[in-house]
């Protein structure tokens, strides 16, 4: 009667993990598509000041970034401690700002060229002189819409 012998034991079959790579790949592709790599490495100290009356800076394709601040620690020997402007991946002087804006503007799509905003990411310990110079340069190339990029916080954090 061995034909009808009951199978011994109620052992659960092992769960197949064959589809695990597929699932992980799916997640992987999602993050690969969603990732925006930082396109320029910061060479300046960039601790933004705090403000709470802020507006969001959506639509990244309409924004040009200008960084300013003291050179970060690894560049201190070479560039000194006075505040510098960083455009793309290079340190720049105030005189380069105009050319940079024109080049950036020319690289954008035609219909966006009039609605561009310049985001000023300036370190909170910078003196206004430098910011003022940048603003004068921006006015010269009529890039009039600017955004002082800040982090969200109470203004009292700026005063000490």
């Amino acid at each position, binding site marked *: 009667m061995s034909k009808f012998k009951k199978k011994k034991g109620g052992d659960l079959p092992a769960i197949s993990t064959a589809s695990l790579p597929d699932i992980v790949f799916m997640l992987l592709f999602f993050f690969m598509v969603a990732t925006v790599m930082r396109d320029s490495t910061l060479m300046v100290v960039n601790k933004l000041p705090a403000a709470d009356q802020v507006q*969001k800076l959506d639509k990244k394709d309409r924004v040009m970034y200008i960084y300013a601040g003291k050179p970060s620690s690894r560049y201190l020997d070479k560039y000194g401690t006075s505040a510098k402007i960083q455009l793309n991946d290079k340190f720049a002087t105030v005189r380069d700002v105009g050319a940079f804006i024109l080049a950036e503007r020319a690289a954008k799509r035609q219909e966006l060229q009039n609605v561009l905003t310049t985001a000023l990411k300036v370190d909170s310990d910078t003196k206004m002189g430098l910011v003022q110079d940048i603003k004068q340069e921006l006015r010269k190339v009529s890039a009039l819409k600017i955004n002082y990029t800040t982090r969200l916080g109470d203004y009292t954090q700026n005063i000490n």
Partner: protein
Amino acid sequence: MAKRSAPEVNAGSMADIAFLLLIFFLVTTTIETDSGLNRKLPPMEDQVDPPIIREKNIFTVVVNKNDQLLVEEELTDIKDLRSLAVAFLDNGGGVGEEACDYCQGERDESSSDNPDKAIISLKNNRETSYKVYIAIQNELVAAYNELRDREFSRLYPSIGLNFVDAQKKYNDPRTSVNDSEDLKPKIDVVKNMFPQKLSEAEPSKTN
């Protein structure tokens, strides 16, 4: 020699490799949007004849190189700036054509006539620090927002939003076209009641 079938490649480590990549992308992903204070710079060309502005319609804010604040020629603490600016903008001291029917201020004759005429002049020194400058800008924008909030809630109580939230909603790409078209004229009305007239003088090298 007997033909040997090729051994199957073990795919067990595929998941590990994929996980490794996944974790890398997880770590490098930044889903963040910047935010900040939007400002508009004045155009470069000089005005031929600057409009005549009465002294009482100008609210002068000066920051010196030691980050001290001088509001209307008086040394002021920054935490008083917002209320001073609100009082100035909302004064509505004008009569006749320049009267302001929605202002709730003191109608002081020596202060501004009308929010439309009121100008805030911000002057800073080259040695002023940026963070203090931003704090002042923030407070001045806050003064405008406070008044705009008040008027927006008064004029359109049915929406149940204040001005800042309404503007946020208007700028949000998820808001439907109908809603934003509905909000736009209302926002503009309130904006025109308290237009942001914030003039920034050329930097002074002295004092």
